[in-house]
């Protein structure tokens, strides 16, 4: 069954990026279905990062590949128009998912018969103020729970469209991105939200990760390998630091319940590591992880072309439909887990969820004609066509 999937995989690009992106999309589905036991196995339980960081970085990487080449061929205006079109698609997808979410909350609340002890959980602002809620949702100022990644992605792409002329000058691009990041963190630059002070993901902070992805995609791999070479001692140190963070995080979260008390200053510091503004500790974790993975998993690793990796590679290559499907499917998963969180239901939700995501990837690849293109071994290895 996996062989036909493998035949749909587009050759000629860095399959590591697609594989990890596919994995991140699956993790996003898992993390969006609370009560899912697999949720305790994802990155966020052991590191200052989760699938969102990987998704944003790799979205930047894919955008750098696809639009960078287009920029060289067709110029800024045409490329910016394409990016803007992509934004429009994402916006429509977001509004669709918003409607689905609202329907799901309404359904759950009705099924629950408005239990008195939940009266504080005004999770459905449509009940209070439907017209305002609709307007705020259209303005992206109202983002319900679990619907905050797409608005971030939309704004990141819009900012990227404006920054396109700088793509050929990576140092200037990085400089602007870092300046914006600093402004977001220290001057409080943020986008306003309805009923809370600002967006959950601050695009002015998160754009740095996206731009780093763009710059990495545009850089010559040989130059990158020379600039950031493998160093065994450094790698051991990095792994030790990541392990120490994993231990410290779990000590703070779960230690006290078992009688192990972390030092107060450590817990106080962990409390300051925010996700909203992409805390430097989170940024550093992603960059260290990228360096480790880039060296430990070679681009030509046979595993990546194996049929077991194919479903994830395919999902990563068809990331937009798979991402939207994963959010929509997570609604169903949440309804199912709300009804029962027994082992049978957990297994069903996870298996059906993954199968459906792969199916969406397969259909998207086939529909866009990728599968009908014969894989030609003469294609140059290295950055090929890519879709952000």
């Amino acid at each position: 069954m996996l062989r036909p999937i493998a035949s749909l995989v587009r050759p000629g690009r860095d399959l590591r990026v697609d594989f990890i992106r596919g994995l991140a999309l699956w993790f996003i589905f898992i993390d969006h279905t609370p009560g899912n036991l697999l949720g305790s196995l994802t990155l966020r339980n052991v590191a200052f990062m989760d699938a969102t960081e990987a998704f944003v970085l790799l979205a930047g990487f894919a955008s750098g590949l696809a639009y960078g080449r287009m920029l060289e061929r067709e110029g800024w205006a045409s490329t910016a128009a394409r990016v803007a079109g992509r934004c429009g698609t994402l916006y429509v997808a977001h509004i669709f998912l918003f409607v689905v979410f609202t329907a799901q909350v309404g359904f759950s609340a009705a099924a629950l018969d408005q239990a008195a002890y939940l009266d504080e959980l005004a999770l459905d602002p449509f009940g209070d103020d439907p017209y305002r809620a609709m307007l705020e949702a259209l303005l992206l100022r109202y983002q319900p729970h679990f619907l905050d990644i797409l608005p971030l992605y939309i704004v990141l792409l819009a900012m990227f469209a404006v920054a396109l002329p700088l793509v050929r000058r990576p140092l200037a691009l990085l400089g602007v991105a870092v300046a914006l990041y600093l402004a977001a963190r220290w001057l409080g630059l943020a986008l306003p939200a309805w009923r809370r002070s600002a967006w959950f993901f601050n695009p002015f902070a998160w754009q740095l990760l996206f731009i780093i992805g763009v710059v990495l995609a545009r850089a010559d791999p040989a130059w990158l390998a020379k600039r950031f070479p493998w160093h065994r001692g450094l790698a051991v140190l990095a792994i030790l630091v990541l392990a120490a963070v994993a231990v410290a995080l779990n000590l703070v979260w779960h230690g006290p319940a078992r009688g192990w008390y972390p030092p107060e200053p450590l817990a106080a510091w962990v409390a300051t590591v925010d996700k909203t503004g992409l805390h430097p500790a989170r940024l550093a974790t992603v960059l260290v992880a990228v360096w480790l993975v880039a060296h430990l998993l070679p681009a030509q690793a046979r595993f990546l072309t194996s049929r077991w990796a194919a479903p994830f590679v395919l999902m990563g290559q068809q990331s937009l439909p798979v991402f939207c499907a994963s959010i929509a499917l997570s609604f169903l998963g949440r309804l199912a887990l709300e009804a029962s969180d027994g082992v049978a239901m957990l297994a069903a939700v996870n298996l059906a969820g993954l199968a459906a995501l792969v199916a969406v990837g397969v259909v998207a690849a086939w529909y866009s004609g990728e599968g009908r293109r014969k894989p030609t071994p003469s294609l140059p290895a290295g950055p090929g066509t890519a879709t952000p």
Partner: protein
Amino acid sequence: MRNPAAALLLALALGLTPPGIPESRAQPAVAQPADVCAAPAEAMDAAPLPGVFAAVARGELRIMVVGSASTASGGTSSTAATWPRQLQARLAARLQGVMVRVEVFGGRGTTAADHARIIAGEAPRLRPHLLIWQLGTVEAARGLPAEEMSDAVQEAAARLTATRGELTDLVLMDMQFSRFFRANANVEPYLDQLRIAAAASGAQLFSRWALMKHWVDIERLDLERAPRDRRKAVADELHACIAGVLTAFILDGIERDHR
């Protein structure tokens, strides 16, 4: 009693006699059937409560409770059935000769920031030995920044320590477990942040979430699935159970200080 560890803890707590209190003040070990709501061991691991310990030794225990709807009413039949009132009754019964006073603040829809203001205003007057702060529900439901919630806790805890030193113990209580809540709000980050806030401010976390989830898992108590006509009765039972475990948690904390 389904959980042997909890049974052991309860037995320990029942046999407790803080020093400085005449033997006659402590009750003999009598387990009442209504109290049997076994708690998982990890929900019960209390650290020493020096403020409460000293207060009990002096014969007067003042407890300040701040929280939102699930503390003020929680769908119970009357205020007397809510967990803070039940806690007062149980502690008074168990600590004979100690005057136990519980005062409740907050209310429906109040946030951690509201609570912090209440604490800043009322704590100097009340001079509580124990502050039980129930929070997180409103933040998680409205998607308010989790970091601001823990900032509020840490600042309030720092102020308490500055004015009261070791005289006031702080216990944080997290949200009620609910499948609906878990499915429709991103609750996990708030649970994590409450654990972090407790660890960062020298407070203890009393995990009502873990406790209620345990009772749902073993099919002992499930408020969400209670039929409409039984809902008040089940809410009363739930609050009685929470008060029971909390009583044992506090007595255990005193015992640990004694050791």
